[in-house]
């Protein structure tokens, strides 16, 4: 395998592939998914596979990740396992509506639907596109293909993922848990497209867990569009726990109407290359957005969190807290943009990124960006990159706590600020535990896995 990746060749490879499959993609999908497909691919070609030359990917060159010979998971393939039998979430008391997604495809035997409150739909996107396309009128309106090559490529390939619809004033009492499994017999390229509508006054919480089930190389490129209606509440917790040969690319777009509240929280426990794109639009007065993230990196892992919060209407508030603990030669990045549009007076927008470097070789790039076109706003941002406080370490040791344990307590304390934002108590306790295990260097497996996988 050549080490030098030729950019033109690589793009050509993807173009050749698209040309090869576009007819069958069109033929096998509903109109609503097909409509933006060709333009999306053109937009991808125009922008190219992200490299550092792309201002938004300044800290993450994805060329090497696109290089391997992947098999593209363009078709639903039979799952040879009963996922319900194989998977047993060991989070005690975490009673959820459970659904599986296998290599980007909504699992056919998901059987939770009946227990969901009346009117709530949790389904395969492919099926909804075929049977109820009217529910997807706003498909691909938030995720603009001309603005991001990963979104463009996802839209070009998109066939399935999950669809969630929560009608007006409906409260989904239990969290909806979505387990994303990657498992193929060879290196695989996975595309997943999700669509979420939480209507006026509704309330839904999602817990999304990403896992790899064997040691093949994976690239997963997902796009999720979320519409949060007036006075609605939406919470989205993501647990990223995949092996080091996985590239996990996620773009989530959230549109908020007035008086709504939306929270996202990314726990990046494990992964090779992780890039999380988040774009929030506060498009109604008194909307509130919370964006949290924590990442634990070691070896040569790379995690890049990229956020954009657009304050389009007055009296909204946004709050971002991102924390990273970086060990070995790992590398992290955070770029957070706050954009206050001209009429969005009385905006409150906060952003903070704190990083703990455990070695001299670990590196962190952090870049806040404020674009403020209104005059009556309160904005703040702050970033720190530091080491464990040696004075505090000595203080703890002087009380009989050994060095490793003292370090661990301080690292846990560092992450805890993010952990405690989780509103679902059993999930919070469990993530606390997983973070502790991860920091101890133990594999933080978050499920009883019947696959004997060594990932």
């Amino acid at each position, binding site marked *: 395998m050549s080490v030098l990746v030729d950019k033109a060749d690589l793009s050509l490879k993807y173009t050749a592939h698209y040309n090869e499959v576009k007819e069958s993609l069109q033929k096998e999908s509903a109109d609503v998914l097909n409509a933006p497909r060709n333009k999306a691919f053109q937009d991808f070609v125009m922008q190219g596979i992200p490299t550092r030359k792309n201002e938004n990917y300044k800290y993450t060159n994805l060329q090497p990740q696109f290089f391997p010979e992947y098999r593209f998971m363009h078709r639903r393939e039979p799952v040879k396992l009963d996922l319900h039998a194989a998977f047993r979430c060991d989070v005690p008391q975490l009673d959820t509506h459970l659904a599986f997604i296998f290599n980007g495809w909504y699992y056919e035997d998901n059987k939770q639907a009946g227990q969901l409150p009346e009117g709530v739909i949790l389904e395969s996107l492919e099926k909804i596109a075929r049977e109820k396309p009217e529910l997807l009128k706003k498909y691909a309106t938030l995720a603009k293909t001309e603005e991001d090559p990963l979104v463009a490529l996802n839209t070009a390939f998109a066939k399935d993922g999950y669809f969630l619809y929560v009608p007006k004033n409906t409260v989904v009492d239990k969290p909806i848990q979505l387990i994303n499994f990657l498992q193929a017999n060879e290196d695989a390229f996975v595309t997943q497209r999700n669509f979420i509508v939480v209507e006026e006054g509704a309330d839904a919480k999602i817990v999304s867990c990403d896992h790899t089930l064997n040691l093949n190389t994976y690239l997963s490129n997902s796009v999720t569009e979320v519409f949060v209606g007036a006075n609605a509440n939406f919470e989205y917790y993501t647990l990223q726990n995949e092996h080091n040969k996985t590239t996990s690319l996620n773009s989530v777009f959230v549109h908020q109407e007035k008086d709504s509240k939306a929270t996202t929280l990314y726990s990046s426990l494990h992964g090779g290359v992780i890039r999380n794109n988040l774009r929030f639009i506060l498009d109604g007065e008194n909307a509130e957005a919370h964006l949290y993230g924590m990442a634990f990196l070691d070896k040569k892992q790379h995690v890049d969190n990229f956020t954009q919060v657009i304050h389009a209407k007055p009296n909204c508030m946004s709050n971002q807290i991102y924390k990273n603990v970086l060990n070995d030669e790992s590398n992290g990045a955070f770029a957070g943009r706050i954009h206050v549009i001209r009429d969005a007076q009385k905006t409150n927008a906060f952003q903070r990124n704190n990083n703990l470097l455990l070695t001299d070789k670990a590196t962190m790039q952090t870049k806040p960006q404020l674009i403020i076109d209104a005059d009556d706003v309160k904005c703040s941002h702050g970033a720190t990159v530091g080491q464990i406080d040696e*004075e505090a370490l000595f203080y*703890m040791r*002087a009380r009989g706590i050994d*060095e490793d344990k003292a370090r661990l307590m301080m690292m846990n304390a560092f992450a805890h600020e993010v952990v405690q934002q989780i509103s679902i108590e059993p999930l919070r306790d469990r993530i606390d535990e997983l973070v502790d295990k991860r920091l101890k260097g133990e594999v933080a497996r978050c499920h009883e896995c019947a696959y004997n996988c060594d990932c």
Partner: protein
Amino acid sequence: MLKIFILKMLSIKDLYVSIDGMEILKGINLEVKPGEIHAIMGPNGSGKSTLANVLAGKEEYEVTHGEVTYMGKNLLEMAPEDRAKEGLFLSFQYPVEIPGVPMVNFLKTAVNEHRKYHNEKELTAGEFLKFMREKMDLVEMRSQLTNRSVNEGFSGGEKKKNEIFQMALLEPKLAILDETDSGLDIDALKTVAHGVNALRKPENATIVVTHYQRLLEYIVPDVVHVLYKGKIVKSAGKELALQLEEKGYDWIKQENEN
């Protein structure tokens, strides 16, 4: 029953200590026996805290010469946490804030690390809370403080009280109190002194670093030492503290300048 009396608890011989190539302690000799209270006084910057920190095991300080024996062991070879578990306790002049680490976790871990070291059963959360409450009364520690992160947002006086509270929980053999009195109001001073006295046992010893005679009215020393420019230049009975209070350090300085 066989009782072994250790005649010397702490023995410091000709100790020289530098930091960043600058010599701060220049030949300290000190012996502390079980049951004794030693006071160390001396002008600002003379090296009192340096001595206290070296004994507790702070690594930035370089011992260039000399030896320290504690309970028959070479203290300088021990890790700070082992010194603590062997019963050496430093009440910090400037207690450190540790954001995010809850007081109760910190204290429980410290107590249980001590217990494990001495082959005692670890305390459960419930047992620990009960134990903690008893000790809180001793130093009149406000219960709100144990709900916060370690020392975070504590007032100067609260931080000092917290040190003695930790001492009460860890029950050390040798306590080194570095200016525990500074920043305490008169009532708090009495409370803290009362706490220290209540924790005394015939087999324990205390080293009190202070600038003021006042504390020594409550915690009465057997010996008072004056540390000046990295050396103990004078040692005498408790009356020395009174003398210093009256006359300041000029006469000591003069005696040592020629």
